[in-house]
């Protein structure tokens, strides 16, 4: 097991490092403990702007800075970025296509004890519906660090979705390369089905694939770090080559990664699908692993659902 750093902290700390040699971006903070960037002003007082507990003004102010040619990072909880300041993101960042990176932290059920009010489970659906928006979600700290570099060089509205708690590193820092809009084939145990996953649940997908392999089911796992624009070619290839697709996301199944994949699949190459995620219900307080299990997002549930998907795939093949 590797180091355990939360994706939010890895991203924020790397941005602080980058700032030492790259003067071309500023940071806007609301008063939250998001990703370590609340300390940005200690190191770079001129380049940090405090907006207090006022997320709409945070986003509006960031838009004003960006309209004057600045590259802006703003950080707050994903619930507030996507909902409290939803319209500001839409109308004043996405519509004028401004160069603002929105760092949304504390995503999904992994937020744990804070419960439903603070667990962003619908932010991807919301952000995905805005033209000009790009959405990315790293799977571990290695990916988050790489993404920090990519985000600094990115131009346009960008939503970076980050998780609260430490997760084990899956990727090798020596070999990992982040590529915009490209799915990353992490596991290739065969062609029985493909699991498409985004964010920290990659670990569960990889573990489930290993268990399925033991049971004679060959699974591919694609890490879809860029949720929008979606790597459609990878999705279509997965559908054609493996004939069944499962999606896994720490998010409601309505409108997020699973929906995005399903849209591509039904329009291009319909195959049996299974979406793993939150089933149209709110989060609650508790240990994240218990919450995942309660929502059938734990490894055992993934394995069971995968086997059921294989049955559907075979029935369909037999029926046609």
């Amino acid at each position: 097991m590797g180091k355990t750093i939360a994706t939010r902290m890895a991203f924020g700390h790397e941005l602080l490092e980058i700032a030492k040699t790259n003067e071309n971006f500023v940071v806007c903070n609301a008063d939250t403990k998001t990703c370590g960037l609340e300390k940005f002003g200690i190191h770079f007082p001129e380049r940090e702007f405090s907006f207090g507990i006022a997320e709409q003004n945070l986003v509006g102010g960031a838009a004003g800075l960006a309209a004057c040619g600045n590259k802006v990072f703003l950080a707050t909880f994903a619930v507030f970025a996507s909902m409290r300041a939803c319209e500001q993101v839409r109308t004043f960042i996405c519509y004028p296509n401004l160069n603002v990176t929105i760092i949304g932290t504390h995503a999904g059920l992994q937020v744990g004890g804070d419960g439903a009010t603070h667990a962003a489970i619908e932010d991807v659906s919301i952000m995905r519906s805005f033209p000009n928006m790009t959405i990315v979600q790293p799977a571990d700290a290695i990916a988050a660090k790489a993404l920090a570099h990519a985000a600094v060089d990115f131009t346009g509205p960008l939503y970076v979705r980050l998780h609260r708690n430490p997760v084990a590193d899956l990727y090798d820092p020596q070999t990992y390369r982040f590529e915009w809009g490209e799915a990353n084939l992490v596991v290739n145990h065969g062609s029985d089905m493909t699991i498409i996953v985004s964010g920290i649940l990659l670990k569960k997908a990889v573990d489930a694939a290993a268990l399925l392999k033991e049971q004679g089911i060959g699974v591919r796992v694609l890490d879809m770090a860029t949720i929008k624009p979606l790597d459609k070619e990878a999705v279509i290839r997965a559908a054609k080559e493996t004939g069944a697709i499962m999606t896994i996301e720490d998010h409601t199944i309505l409108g997020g990664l699973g929906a995005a994949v399903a849209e591509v699949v039904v329009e291009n190459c319909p195959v049996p699908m299974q979406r793993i995620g939150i089933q149209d219900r709110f989060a609650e307080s508790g240990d994240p692993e218990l919450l995942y299990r309660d929502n059938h997002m734990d490894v055992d549930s993934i394995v069971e659902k995968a086997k059921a998907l294989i049955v559907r795939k075979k029935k369909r093949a037999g029926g046609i």
Partner: protein
Amino acid sequence: MVSSNYFTERDVERLEAQALQIREDILSMIHAAKSGHPGGSLSAVEMVTALYFHVMRIDPQNPDWEDRDRFILSKGHSCPVLYAALARRGYFSPDLLHTLRQYHSILQGHPDMKKTPGVDMTAGSLGNGLSIGVGMQLSAKLHHQNYMTYVMLGDGEIQEGMVWEAAMAAGHHELKNLVAIVDCNGVQINGWVNEIMTIEPVADKWRAFGWRVIEVNGHNMKDVLTALHTAKTMRHPTAILMRTVKGKGVSFMEDDCSWHGSAPDDEQLVKAIAEIKEGGVV
């Protein structure tokens, strides 16, 4: 301190004549579009004219000039006044004014910074512009630029809570080159502002947030010019509360909320323009 030679009598005459032209443009373009917002456009004419034809450091040949003064029409539905001023100032041809709200026009129903030369910020959803202005002035501080940012809000608009988030931030960050101009015409879409949701005591509210307040007759060009010049000299963010008349210059539109968002027909247009030409402004 107000400089005595900041403007001359000739400037005032020139600007008043320009304001007449802009009033006529507003009515013509809304008539052509068959929709739009004449009331709040007409109440803002003197201020927008003073800004674009005398006060702001701008270059119509170089709309993206980094050191230019900025103007954000937070009450974006009043964009006919802005479009007319931009066209007459030379940002684009006045011939385009009649394309307001039409398919593929550069003149959208609410300001779009990507489509219209000279529009510094997209606007239209009320309550947002002052936050953008805060961001623009934070940028000015960061890059040691001394441009001004003027944000025009409606008096009904300041019912939006986000305005006060921005007001608080401007005071906190001591944004002395940020000027909020509140078009206090007293009327919003369904009636009188102070019957729907009172904003009084409006001057005290701004002062409480760390702003200096200037109250002015928004239809008196000399007063408007003096207020704008005074605002430039302030060491704090400044709110200009301009008392205006919604629909100013057209008898049947004045103080009538039904003209917040409706277009004159052919007959009404002729009458309105005749009144404007006869009466000028007080």
